Each structure stands twice: as structure tokens, then as C-alpha cells.
């Protein structure tokens, strides 16, 4: 007899049936796949561009092709410049200012025709540096040239004093000693603080499409009522849909992470003489933090979208809701929430706090991970069950 066949099939089996259907359906939805791919690309692309720019600038400052006009007026100075590491002296263009304006050169040096004469008479000899102050990227190079000139000037001055029997130190009243407390490594790590935010966005947008499609979309198409005519507990139905959206979110996070790790590996840190490398293990441990959030964010989206009668209505609700996971993320990039393990059980905020510790090189304890994950999953489950209750409401089943 098939009298209670529906009741005999266990609930887990039903969850899997719904999950499989939603994955099949979502996998065929170009919008779902595109939103997954797109959200996964944000972090790697951003880091790729950011680190390439940083590396490029540093390389620029280290290796300078310096156009010098009037080199014949100061053969010794130019020879000295040539001997400095990474400096290549090249002939200057006819119109130096135009060349800089046209961005053919970052900086052009013009040596005054009276250079040798003034040098001989110990009158300050003029060196003109043509540069464009609005060009951010040219600044390290200009600064390097300026410091080369200053070095030559003070060396020559010191020799002059010695020649006159005066200790060179007498001409130096003050001496600045720079103490930079942040290493370049740390400053680069600062840039990485945005990574958790980007991963959370991936977790949210990766599953967004399928979460809306399987709730508001189901109502809009008029397929919810026929679906609910099947003898399936609402909890199993909601769970299947929730897991499908969550898996898409997880997919986006993992994909994003794999790409980011690959991008980081390709940045030529060693060529640049920078000892900077967040280990793969550290990056991967971010996964342990963010993946449970994919389940929570999908549950939030699903809950909100169930109230919507159409895809568009759902999107208008979610515009606001998107801010929920983003605001703590943006705040945490400005004021890292590091060293606050008690935040761990607060969903979303806790993940950002622990992620800051991971990136700060102070890995949180396994308990913090467990707490953060368990709390996010508990809230997610609660929301999924609440969504299941919504699916009993007549206004939601029939309201079109």
C-alpha cells in the first residue's frame, strides 16, 4: 500500500531531493552562475591590481632612467649619478617641461650651464628638477632623485669643509633619525584587511540569486502552491532551498579564495626585496571563518525574499539588507577589531574580529573558530526554520 509512503520517506531524503533540484535549476540559471563567478572575482582582481601597482611603483623608484640635460656642464656629478645603483642617465628631451606634461618622463634633470663655474667658486650650483606634483605614481621616483641630489650636495660640502680644516659635522646642527614603526610588510598587511569584507560579499552574492529564485521566484512563477501540494514537511523544503543557496555562497567564497591565493603567489615579492607573504595556511583559515557565514547570509536572504511576491520586490528589500554584513566589514577595515575574541559568538562581527587576528599574525584559538561557526550556523538554522513557518501562511502561499 502506498498509504503512508510519503511519511515513510525520511526527512533527510526529502531535503536532499529539494537540494538536488535547486542545484540543477540554479546551475542552469545564467544569472546564478554569473553572480557566483562575478562575486568570486572581486577579491582576486582587486588584490592583483593593488599589489601590482605597489610593486610597480617600488620598482620604478629603484630603477630610474633619468634624463639629464646639460650633462656636459657637470661631468663629475653625472658620473657620480651613473655609479648609483639602479640609476641610468639618458639624454634629455628637447623640451623638458612638455615631456613631463605629456608623461613621457616622470622627472627630468636640467643642469645649469654655469654649474662648473659656480662649483669652482663654491657658490650653490643650480640643478633644475622638472616634475608633475599631481602625478601620484611619479612621486617615489622624484623623491629618489631629490635625495640623490641632496646626498651629492652634502658629500661635496663635507669635502669642502674638510679641505678648509673644519669638521663637516659643524655644518649639521640637527640630524633627523626616522623611526618607522610599521614595516612595509605590515603596511601591505593593512591592505589585506579588506579581504574578509570581500569574502563576505562573495558569500552573500554567490547564493543571492538562487536564494531569491527559490523563494520570491517560486511565488512569482506560481510554482509555490503546486510544490506545497506535495506531502513534504515545510522544514525539509526550506532546508533544501537554504542549503542550495548556501552551497552556491560557499562555492563563491572557495573560488574567490583559490584565485586570491594564486594572485598572491604570483606577485614577485622577492624581486622587490620585500619579505611579505601571508601564508596559504593563514588565508585558508579565513575559509573556516567565512564559510559558516555563507549559510547565515543565505538564510537571511531567503527569509526576507519569502515575503516578496516577485524577484524585483525581493531585490528592493535586499538593497537595505546588503548593508547588514557590509557595515561591520567596512568599519573593521578602518578599525581592525583584532584581539577581541569575546566577539566570536556575535555573527558577522565575530567573523571580522577573528579574521583581523588571522591577518595580524595572531591566529585565534580553535575554540574561537568553533564558537563563531556554531553561532552563525545556529542563527542560520533558526532563520531557515522561521522561513519554513512562513511557508504555512496562506497569505504567502496564495498571495500573488
Amino acid at each position, binding site marked *: 500500500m*502506498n*498509504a*503512508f*509512503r*510519503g*511519511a*515513510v*520517506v525520511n526527512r533527510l531524503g*526529502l531535503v536532499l*531531493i*529539494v537540494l538536488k*533540484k535547486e542545484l*540543477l*535549476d540554479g546551475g*542552469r*540559471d545564467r544569472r546564478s552562475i554569473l553572480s557566483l563567478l562575478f562575486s568570486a572575482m572581486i577579491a582576486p582582481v582587486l588584490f592583483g591590481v593593488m599589489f601590482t601597482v605597489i610593486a610597480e611603483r617600488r620598482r620604478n623608484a629603484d630603477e630610474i632612467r633619468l634624463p639629464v640635460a646639460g650633462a656636459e656642464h657637470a661631468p663629475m656629478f653625472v658620473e657620480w649619478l651613473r655609479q648609483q645603483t639602479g640609476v641610468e642617465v639618458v639624454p634629455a628631451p628637447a623640451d623638458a617641461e612638455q615631456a613631463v606634461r605629456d608623461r613621457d618622463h616622470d622627472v627630468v634633470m636640467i643642469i645649469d650651464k654655469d654649474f662648473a663655474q659656480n662649483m669652482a667658486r663654491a657658490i650653490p650650483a643650480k640643478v633644475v628638477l622638472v616634475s608633475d606634483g599631481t602625478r601620484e605614481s611619479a612621486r617615489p621616483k622624484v623623491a629618489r632623485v631629490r635625495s640623490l641630489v641632496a646626498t651629492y650636495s652634502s658629500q661635496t660640502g663635507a669635502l669642502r669643509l674638510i679641505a678648509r680644516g673644519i669638521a663637516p659635522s659643524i655644518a649639521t646642527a640637527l640630524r633627523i633619525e626616522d623611526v618607522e614603526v610599521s614595516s612595509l610588510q605590515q603596511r601591505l598587511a593593512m591592505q589585506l584587511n579588506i579581504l574578509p569584507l570581500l569574502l563576505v560579499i562573495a558569500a552573500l552574492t554567490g547564493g543571492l540569486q538562487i536564494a531569491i529564485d527559490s523563494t520570491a521566484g*517560486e511565488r512569482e*512563477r*506560481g*510554482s*509555490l*502552491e*503546486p510544490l*506545497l*501540494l*506535495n*506531502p*513534504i*514537511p515545510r522544514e525539509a523544503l526550506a532546508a533544501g532551498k537554504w542549503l542550495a543557496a548556501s552551497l552556491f555562497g560557499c562555492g563563491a567564497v572557495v573560488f574567490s579564495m583559490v584565485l586570491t591565493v594564486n594572485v598572491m603567489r604570483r606577485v614577485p615579492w622577492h624581486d622587490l626585496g620585500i619579505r611579505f607573504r601571508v601564508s596559504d595556511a593563514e588565508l585558508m583559515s579565513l575559509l573556516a571563518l567565512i564559510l559558516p557565514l555563507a549559510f547565515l547570509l543565505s538564510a537571511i536572504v531567503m527569509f526576507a525574499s519569502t515575503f516578496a511576491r516577485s524577484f524585483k520586490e525581493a531585490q528592493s528589500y535586499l538593497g537595505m539588507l546588503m548593508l547588514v554584513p557590509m557595515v561591520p566589514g567596512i568599519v573593521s577595515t578602518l578599525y581592525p577589531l583584532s584581539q577581541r575574541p569575546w566577539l566570536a559568538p556575535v555573527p558577522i562581527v565575530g567573523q571580522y574580529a577573528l579574521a583581523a587576528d588571522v591577518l595580524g599574525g595572531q591566529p585565534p584559538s580553535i575554540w574561537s573558530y568553533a564558537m563563531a561557526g556554531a553561532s552563525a550556523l545556529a542563527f542560520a538554522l533558526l532563520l531557515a526554520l522561521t522561513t519554513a513557518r512562513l511557508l504555512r501562511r*496562506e497569505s504567502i*502561499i*496564495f498571495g*500573488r
Partner: protein
Amino acid sequence: MIHVERLYKRFGTVEAVRGVTFRADDGLVTGLLGPNGAGKTTALRMLSGLMRPDEGAIRVDGIDVVTDPLAAQTQMGLLPDSRGLYPRLTPREHIRYFGRLHGLNGSALEERATGLLVRLGLESVADRRVGGFSQGERTKVALARALVHQPRNVILDEPTNGLDVMSTRAMRSLIRSLRQDGCCVLFSSHIMQEVSALCDHIVVIAQGTVVADGTPDELRRRTGRSDLEDAFVALAGLETEVSL
């Protein structure tokens, strides 16, 4: 067999269904006839277990729909008012999904799916996504997934709505073959021809209550009209409304 007793449903101040009572027997086609807004769809929604009546009892093959809707749903195949499909799935995948939700699987499910696709004339489009289907094809897919678990009680809400002549004929022959199989078929309609062509038993609903209940012949006799449509108009109290 479907038993509906003293069913009430109120939406705000509107009493959509007011004490509807009827029964639909196995091996018979029962028509729920009434003008638009009479409460047919509301009654069927309560019958499906998705809407809770304010009062009254519904039993399907002896199972109480109000207290145990899931068990009752295993006994019913419903073509509801809304027939939304999943545009990215094929008819076969629709049937499979609903079949699995009813606990079918493996070769039994595949055979059942193929059988339904053939019976409904969907073989040629069985593995094409339903996104671009015609209204007739969509209705057939919706029907196929409602029948996948071989329900003994088949409930159809305005099944020929939006169908062309050929599809309407196919629907009628399907309803007849379900009756032959001994199923209890209950369908709602506002189209007289349909009801008179198919029904063994007619329940006329107007303004939320049953105004008449019987075989087509009984209804004609009771109203003294030879034409069933005239009988219906008289029973539903529509004449007075028109003259107002």
C-alpha cells in the same frame, strides 16, 4: 472519496465560503460548478490542505485533511489554480521532482514518468526545457506532475482554462480515463458545456454556498429547464442579478 462538511472560510469581512457540504465518490466525475467568485477555488484550496477552514471537516479516503494534511496529500493529485513551472527544467524533470517528493524513485519512477509523458502526448518535448512551452503544454506538464504518484483522488481547478480545442479534448479524454480507472475526479468549472459533457454529479456553488447538488438530469428536473445552462443560471440566482 472526498467528503466536505459544513465548510466556512472568511477573509476579513468577506465570507468566501459559507457552509459548503458535498461529497465526491470513486469512479465518478464530480463537477463543482459556479460563477466567478462563487468560492470554488477557495473550497478547493481548503481541500488541498494548504488553507485552513474556519469551520468544517474535510476527509479524503477517510483521512482528515485539516489535522493531517500531508497524509491526505499522498491520496490526492491536484491541478491548482496556479500552474507555475520551472522554466529551466524539462517535463521529465518536473515529473521526476514531484515523484521523488512522493517517495518514488529508480526504475518505477522512470517508467511512470515515461508513461505519463506518452499518455499526455508530451513525448516529443519531454526533454526540452519548459520555458518556451505553449499554454496547453504547460497545463499538461502541471497535470503530469500532479498525477505522478497515481492518486486515487484527482482534483482539477478549471482544468481547461486557456486551452485550445484540441487540448480541451485531450483533457476531457484524460478525465474519462481516470474515471474508468476508478478514480474520484473532482473538477471546478464555470463552463456549462464542459460540465454537461463530463459530469456524473454536479455541485452548484453560488455566493459561497451549495445551491444545488445532483446528477445533470436531477438538476434539469428540479428547475424545470431542459437546458442545463438555463438550469444553472436559475440555480445560481444569476437571473435576478442581471435584471437588477
